[in-house]
């Protein structure tokens, strides 16, 4: 792919953005007086800000570029990652789970596990989560350095060090509040940077109807039915009928239930944003507010991919770059379209939006890491009774360490790409059963700490076992699976991932129930505020309907159903 040349105005836009980002950190520095200010924003942030931050923390560049790449690979079915794999879980966490996270006054998700279950369950979750956030942040940094080197010819070292220093600056100074404020800024920048791209691409191809017509040609040229790229559900009766290689059950149970609820309902990176809200009602509204723009995001990030593959396979005017082996390099969809359609000026805005998405992903991971490290590891196991100012200092040191470890992980990825693949695989095994633990913890008062811990460990082992005994079609045994032998072959890697999650959830759920029934539960008085049946429902009758989580969630779910039907 040819390099993109930036004009002075492009650099000026990038420079202005970076000044604002650091400026927000400086503006908030004087408000960081206690550890609660630094880690929890003093629980003082209005819901429109926490809502957009909840969305933005997940809007890293892997999301923006990855979803465009998936749009090119799979077409409109990529919207399942939003309309099936995100919105229902966001509504569920807002309506049903946030009262326990926020109401229990837990300072983190692992701390909720401590309050509800026991120390060993918290420790398992805290240590794996802290390690995972650092590596995720490092992978984000590595991807950004690689992209800027490929696209602009910038030095890999300079790119990642500059980004790391800027993220370090604004989190060190302003803590979680600074990260949240910058995530909202990044949200507006990402939308304003990519909207003109969608408009120009659609205009170039001749509008939506022309795009659909061209994608029908694309589908038939690849051996699928004409509507395979433009129908989200019609070809999911059998995995072989759609480009994803997944059937409806794996899609609904694997992505729509286990993986999406596991991420949106238990991942501290996103839940932390809601826990910073100024009241219980604001915390419950946070994921619901995030769900509204989230359901529109396919138009912003998937549509460019669909435009790119339609143009590439039906005679232009642009063509996706290819890898050395001749296959399409789908990951370069967004950068290629930015370079193709944007003149200097908006090109600077588009690239700044791309940088913003990398930085928001990294900042989200680092703020989650410094909180879990300080509260759930350092305060719990290393130094229990220090002063609040000591924990504030430790939070800042954890930020420095988190950024340093992210940079180290980025360099590790340059040397040993397979190690990073392996680590991501291990973290996927750990995450897969998590939702079963939380579901039983919040909605079944009989579940016990021994049950939760043994369920988590068994679910993780089940995920590893399933992966070790299965392979996607055409793959070689190794990092893709099959390292214990071959019991089942899946039509695609995505189908294998979904079924791995289903098995992990199932084993964790069954074993947690079984062990809980064999062990002594905690007395009910200790579980008030932690379990559904022992917690009074939050009062919100005096609020207008659009501020009440129940009615607002119902409207959002109705809109998602309509979207699924429209693009059926």
């Amino acid at each position: 792919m040819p390099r993109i040349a930036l004009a002075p105005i492009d650099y000026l836009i990038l420079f202005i953005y970076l000044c604002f980002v650091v400026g927000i950190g400086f503006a908030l520095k004087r408000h960081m007086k206690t550890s609660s200010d630094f880690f929890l924003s003093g629980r003082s942030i209005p819901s429109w800000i926490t809502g957009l931050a909840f969305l933005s923390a997940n809007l890293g560049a892997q999301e923006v570029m990855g979803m465009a790449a998936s749009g090119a690979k799979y077409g409109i079915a990529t919207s399942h990652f939003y309309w099936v794999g995100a919105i229902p879980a966001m509504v569920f966490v807002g309506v049903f789970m946030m009262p326990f996270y926020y109401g229990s006054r837990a300072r983190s998700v692992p701390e909720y596990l401590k309050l509800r279950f026991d120390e060993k369950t918290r420790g398992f979750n805290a240590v794996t989560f802290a390690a995972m956030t650092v590596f995720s942040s490092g992978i984000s940094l590595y991807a950004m350095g690689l992209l800027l080197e490929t696209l602009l010819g910038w030095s890999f070292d300079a790119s990642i060090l500059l980004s790391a220093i800027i993220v370090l600056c604004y989190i060190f100074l302003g803590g979680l509040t600074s990260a949240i404020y910058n995530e909202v800024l990044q949200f507006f920048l990402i939308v304003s940077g990519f909207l003109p791209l969608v408009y120009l691409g659609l205009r170039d191809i001749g509008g939506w109807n022309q795009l659909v017509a061209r994608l029908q040609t694309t589908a038939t040229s690849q051996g699928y039915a004409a509507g395979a790229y433009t129908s989200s559900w019609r070809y999911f009766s059998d995995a072989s009928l759609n480009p994803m290689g997944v059937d409806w059950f794996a899609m609904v149970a694997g992505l729509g239930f286990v993986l999406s609820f596991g991420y949106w309902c238990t991942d501290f990176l996103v839940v932390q944003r809601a826990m910073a809200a100024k009241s219980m009602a604001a915390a419950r509204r946070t994921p619901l507010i995030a769900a509204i723009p989230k359901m529109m995001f396919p138009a912003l990030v998937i549509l460019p991919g669909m435009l790119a593959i339609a143009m590439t396979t039906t005679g232009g005017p642009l063509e996706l770059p290819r890898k050395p082996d001749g296959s399409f390099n789908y990951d370069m969809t967004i950068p290629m379209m930015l370079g193709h359609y944007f003149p200097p000026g908006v090109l600077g805005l588009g690239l700044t939006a791309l940088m913003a998405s990398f930085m928001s992903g990294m900042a989200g991971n680092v703020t989650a890491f410094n909180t879990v490290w300080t509260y759930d590891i350092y305060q719990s196991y290393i130094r229990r009774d220090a002063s609040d100012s000591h924990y504030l200092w430790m939070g800042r040191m954890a930020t420095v360490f988190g950024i340093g470890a992210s940079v180290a992980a980025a360099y590790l990825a340059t040397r040993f790409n397979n190690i990073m693949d392996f680590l991501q695989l291990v973290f996927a095994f750990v995450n897969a059963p998590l939702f079963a633990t939380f579901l039983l913890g919040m909605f079944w008062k009989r579940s016990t700490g021994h049950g939760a811990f043994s369920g988590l460990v068994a679910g993780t082992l089940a995920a590893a076992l399933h992966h070790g005994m299965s392979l996607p079609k055409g793959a070689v045994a190794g990092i893709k699976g099959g390292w214990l032998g071959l019991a089942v072959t899946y039509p695609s890697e995505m189908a294998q991932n979904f079924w791995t999650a289903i098995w992990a959830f199932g084993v964790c759920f069954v074993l947690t129930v079984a062990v809980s029934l064999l062990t002594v539960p905690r007395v009910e008085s200790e579980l008030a505020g932690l379990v559904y049946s022992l917690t009074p429902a939050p009062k919100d009758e005096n609020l207008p309907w659009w501020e009440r989580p129940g009615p607002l969630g119902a409207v959002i779910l109705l809109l998602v159903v309509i979207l699924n039907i429209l693009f059926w």
Partner: protein
Amino acid sequence: MGLDLRIPIGLLLGIIGFLLVVFGLVSDPSLYQRSLGININLIWGSVLLLFGIVMVMLARRAAGSRS
């Protein structure tokens, strides 16, 4: 937390919008062959500038009603 976020959002988008408008007015029209002949800097810059002004005005009005 003592900082109305609408102000930095409005200022950032307003400044970027203003820069795009100015650049759109002074740049060579041949630059816009890439963007299908549309002066995307002028059009999108105007939208961002307007959005930025509205955000700052909303923040100032909210500050006025609080004091």
